[in-house]
């Protein structure tokens, strides 16, 4: 018995110890679960970014904002809705169609009724609803109307800088401008967040002034088009770039007038006329082949081959380089081109970026039309801006190179950081030649054809250009169709900005005595722009109070 009892107790003790071990394991396991449960409840750090609603917000912000250089919003994406109908749930298609037309009067009622009577489950009604329109549709209380949430690109400044920002198609896909050129950057996520805002070099205040004055000048003179560009001569930043007629980027490309769709500042080519004289004089001074007082024979028209070069305001006398610029003598500049040499002139224009497309941010950049070979006649005609067609943006960049002491800087539409070093650029002129050229351009405004651009206190330096356009019905030029332009630098004593205003086919009006040349069309527009924009840019007029006797100061009371 006793052996049997020992035998039965021994297995029981073994079982008990095994159970204890098992229970201990369970206890440890549950204790771990308990600690974790408390940790989850009390100490869990909620990753908000990973939750559904926040992630949905980030997904919707798939396109970055665009601002001007001062942070003013130019383009942004706002929530939007697309309205569609499920015809299977529509009770009365006629009633629903009429109700919808109270919100969307432009929709065709008959077409709406056809859609609402169809057998499908999805009929598109209207894209890009505003919150007010969506609310109004809700208030119609019509069954079968549904919304799809999406995002809509808006340009709150309307037409301002429309050509720079760009056009889109009916689905909102960018077609032109910065919106297209920087499409990847505008949509590329940065650092786990949405895409970062892009700051343009444009100053929206200056842009408005430039657009307003270009519009006024173009309307006054009945032009078919116009362009205006303003650059910071040290950094190459485009402060304003306007093309007239304007476009509204809020509307798809199909709703814009065809004539307005081209960006005339970067994507249209013009024979600029006498504004090119600044370049031939600059290279002549740089190479030492001319001096400001050197005399040239302008007594007779210059004949090269079968071509005869005349002056519009013929002086019929010997002219200094000063006078050649002030009187805008074609004969004089053609003779300077002879001294400079055709090859040298061609290479210099190439250094100024006038013979190749400007590789910048925009894709709408035209390739200049340049002579196939640089002979004596080509150089002579190019010296007064004929036989070579370039964009207004490229010419403005050329003037900026003269203004900043002789360094060509590639224009950019992106704002440079305030603490960034100025771009290196490409030296094209000596500082002395650049200074002398600016002085000659100042004389053009002070005493020559550019008087209409003078702004007391800002010492405007510039050059007029009135070029006849090529005939549409054959070779030669049309004396009735002209391009008038004025390129300027200000302030002349310490140049900061370069500006160009161009009017395509301006007409003479009574206030100009019937004339439509640059001196009475583009130059006054430049004067008005500088008058309004210079104070915005923080430029103080250089007049002193001692000069107040002749130049009144009237500080605000």
């Amino acid at each position, binding site marked *: 018995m006793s052996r049997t009892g020992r035998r039965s107790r021994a297995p029981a003790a073994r079982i008990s110890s095994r159970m204890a071990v098992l229970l201990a394991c369970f206890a440890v396991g*549950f204790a771990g679960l308990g600690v974790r449960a408390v940790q989850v409840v009390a100490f869990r750090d909620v990753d908000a970014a990973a939750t559904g609603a926040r992630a949905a917000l980030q997904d919707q912000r798939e396109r970055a904002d665009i601002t001007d250089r001062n942070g003013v919003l130019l383009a942004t994406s706002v*929530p939007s809705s697309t309205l569609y109908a499920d015809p299977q749930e529509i009770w009365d298609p006629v009633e629903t169609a009429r109700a919808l037309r109270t919100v969307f009067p432009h929709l065709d009622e008959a077409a709406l009724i056809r859609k609402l009577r169809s057998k499908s489950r999805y009929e598109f009604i209207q894209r890009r609803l505003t919150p007010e329109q969506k609310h109004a549709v809700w208030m119609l209380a019509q069954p079968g109307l549904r919304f799809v949430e999406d995002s809509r690109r808006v340009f709150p400044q309307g037409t301002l800088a429309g050509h720079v920002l760009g056009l889109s198609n009916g689905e909102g896909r960018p077609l032109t401008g910065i919106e297209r050129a920087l499409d990847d950057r505008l949509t590329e996520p940065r650092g786990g967040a949405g895409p970062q805002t892009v700051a343009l070099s444009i100053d929206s205040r200056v842009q*408005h002034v430039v657009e307003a004055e270009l519009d006024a000048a173009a309307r006054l003179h009945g032009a078919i088009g116009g362009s205006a560009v303003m650059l910071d001569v040290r950094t190459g930043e485009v402060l304003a770039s306007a093309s007239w007629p304007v476009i509204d980027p809020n509307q798809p490309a199909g709703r814009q007038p065809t004539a307005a769709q081209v960006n005339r500042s970067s994507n249209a080519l013009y024979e600029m006329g006498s504004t090119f004289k600044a370049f031939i004089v600059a290279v002549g001074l740089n190479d030492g082949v001319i001096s400001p007082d050197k005399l040239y024979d302008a007594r007779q028209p210059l004949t090269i081959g079968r071509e005869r070069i005349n002056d519009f305001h013929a002086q019929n006398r010997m002219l200094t380089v000063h006078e050649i610029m002030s009187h805008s003598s074609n004969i004089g500049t053609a003779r300077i081109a002879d001294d400079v040499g055709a090859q040298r002139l061609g290479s210099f224009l190439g250094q100024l970026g006038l013979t190749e497309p400007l590789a910048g941010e925009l894709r709408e950049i035209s390739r200049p039309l340049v002579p196939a070979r640089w002979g004596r006649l080509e150089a002579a005609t190019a010296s007064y801006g*004929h036989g070579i067609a370039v964009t207004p943006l490229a010419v403005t960049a050329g003037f900026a190179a003269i203004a900043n002491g002789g360094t060509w800087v590639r224009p950019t539409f992106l704002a440079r950081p305030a603490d960034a070093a100025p771009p290196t650029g490409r030296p094209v002129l000596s500082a002395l030649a650049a200074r002398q050229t600016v002085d000659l351009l100042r004389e053009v405004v002070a005493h020559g054809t550019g008087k209409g651009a003078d*702004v007391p206190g800002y010492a405007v330096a510039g050059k007029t250009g009135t070029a006849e356009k090529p005939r549409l019905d054959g070779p030669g030029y049309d004396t009735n169709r002209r391009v008038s332009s004025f390129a300027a630098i200000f302030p002349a004593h310490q140049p900061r900005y370069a500006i160009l205003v161009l009017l395509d086919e301006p007409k003479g009006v009574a206030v100009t*005595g019937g004339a439509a040349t640059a*001196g009475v069309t583009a130059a006054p527009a430049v004067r008005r722009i500088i008058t309004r924009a210079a104070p915005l840019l923080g430029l103080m007029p250089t007049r002193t109070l001692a000069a*107040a006797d002749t130049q*009144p100061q009237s*500080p605000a009371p």
Partner: protein
Amino acid sequence: MTLARSTLLGSACLVILAVALYLAKTEAERVRDSVERMERELVQETKAVTILEAELVWRSGPQRMETAARALGLGSITPDQLVALSDLDQVLSPEGGPPGEPTRAAPPAAGGAQARPAPASSEPAAAPSRGEANP
């Protein structure tokens, strides 16, 4: 006896842990719902802010401001309205006072300086010269 006590203790722990786990899970779900509700509100508010920002820019755009300013009889700043801070004393002094207005800084006892008549503008007229044209 030991086994029974151990079983009882283990069962009690099991029940306590089960209750704790239930409470923890319930609380976690409540917190998660709360967070998601707040985030939905945040998304809605962010959308509203985006729209309001765009509307603010539109309403304060230069075209609208210019129209409003004209209605108030205001105009653009012109260069002759600008003066350097260092020249301010001269502007306010009797000699340099604003044309057509009495000098504010000078008391009547000091002579009641009157500003000089406004000089004629020296800005050259935009003469309708014919400029030049090229053949």
